[in-house]
């Protein structure tokens, strides 16, 4: 199974956290470090990495890796 880029960014955001990088169902709260504040930082990292900007609605709706992948694909970015 291939590691997608969003999961790689998750590793970059949480370098020391314990999680399975292949698990696409990971979401806010899956490990203690990933709380709502850190989640916002993570979304900003995703924005920066893809040079895009999410709307407030998109930010509120994205909770998991698969949500983020889906939002990115709606913006024409395939992972």
């Amino acid at each position: 199974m291939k590691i997608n880029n969003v999961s790689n960014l998750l590793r970059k955001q949480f370098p020391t956290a314990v999680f399975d990088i292949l698990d696409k169902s990971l979401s806010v709260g899956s490990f203690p470090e990933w709380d709502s504040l850190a989640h916002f930082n993570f979304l900003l990292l995703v924005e920066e990495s893809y040079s895009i900007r999410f709307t407030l609605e998109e930010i509120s709706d994205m909770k998991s890796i698969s949500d983020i992948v889906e939002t990115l694909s709606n913006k024409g970015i395939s992972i």
Partner: protein
Amino acid sequence: MKELRITSSFNILPSSKLWEKLYPYNHIKFGDYGDWISSIFDSDNSQLLWIFFLEDLISTENIPSTNNDKIDELLEKTLSPLVRRLQKSDSETLVAWSSWRSSSIIRLTRSESYWGKLSRNLESKLYKIASEFPSLYLIPLDEMFFKYGSNKCFDARNYYASSCRLSIYGIDVMVDTIQSVLYRIETPPKKVLVLDCDNTLWGGVVGEVGITGIILGNDGIGKSFSDFQRVIKQLSLYGVILTILSKNNEFDVWEVFQNHAGMQINKSDVASWEINWREKSTNIINISKKLNLGLDSFVFWDDNPLEREKMRIALPQVTTIDVPDDTTCWPLLLETLDDFASFSLTSEDLNKSYQYKQYSSFSSELQQVKDELSFLATINLKPVVVNLSNSVLSRAEQLCHKTNQFNLRTIRYSLDSLNNISKNSEYQSFLVGLNDIFGDHGIVGFVIVKKYNEVAFLDTFLISCRVLGRHLENWILSKVIDKLLNIECSFLLAEFIPNNRNAIVESFLLDCGFIPIDEVGIHIQNRLLNAMRLSNKIGKYYYIDLKLAKIPFLEIFKDENK
């Protein structure tokens, strides 16, 4: 390495990599945003950086209905914890703030805006305090936000998404600004400016075009060279030592200095020079020996990128400025250069501060605060109980999902579950709103209690981080206890489930007199746990005897019952 406590009125994205730029200078400890009051009070032994947006402190709903005296009083009150700290602690205090609010240009054409007046009032108060306390460093962030573009620095979406007033770019600008101040606190300014001549002090090469052919003075590009020299002259008046390092015939250079009308600096302004054809790195060492000053206090300014690169490689301890090719930018660049800037504290300033500490004259008596509690007692904390009705269910849900710090069990209830809880008579649940002189904070607390005969179980107990440090949790707990005594409960059982950030809740329980149930007899343990028919325990259990409970700090609240 010194500890630097950072506290802020908004989310400054502490976990962002951008803050790592400060790590080499200080041991950084971030507070939670919104807890600036308690951070200012309990950081006397460390350096403190207080970052705020005026909008976060002074609620806009007060404006402009409130009269000037009121606003003045409000500002003084807001700054009083800062003044108390400065009186008590010699550790450096940095205050970084932004008070800018955009307005219609039409409204500003005939009268000063209320907000503008307020922000200038704040600024003058802060500088007045700074003139009395040398350990205070003011960082007017708007200076930098304007320079780099306020539209790029401020970010409304981030504010509504996560209470972060700035964009990543804005955070970057802010961190760089703070870094340069911290750097200057640790490192003295540079002392020596080393200048090239041709195409630096004037346009053209004097050895080729002669004194009449160089570009200097009058208008156009010549004026920009003259202005550059004016800034150099100004620096020398501030005490910067001027030196010249030029590959030229010495005679040609001094002829320009003495006979060209556009020259702003004189030969007598130049402390030392090496005008010859040797390598500049060799020459600069000679100058350093003549002046008896270390190379690390030298700044090298040269239009030639090759000379700059050679200097950087040969002598990295010299600060080589990466000057742009466009020389018209130079006057402003040199003027705003941080390398020579000092905090300009004279012995008179220091003396003044000593007097201040003895006679303390800044605030009126009203604004004198001895400690955190007496300060909190003056800010009119007015909490109010809000029943869990349909109109506030979604706020309750939001609090359950977003609160991490002051959250007893971090149970993320859905709207449906909360709806059921609000209709079930076994539950006691309510929200808490809070108002103080800084404005209406809205609904910021939420409690759910479930009754099992004589035992009540504290199912949810949380407070939004933006009002932490006001002891609101104590008030809420006292309300819970009142309600439970009315319905004949004897004990309140609390289960603390640790998440990454909520250690604060456990210490709160202990401060209020909760007892870990592992530390009491098996008889009472069974009585408590059997009442709930509890089989598997997840977190740590604490209980309190409701009739004996004495909750501290309630005297600071001005709620409806008083």
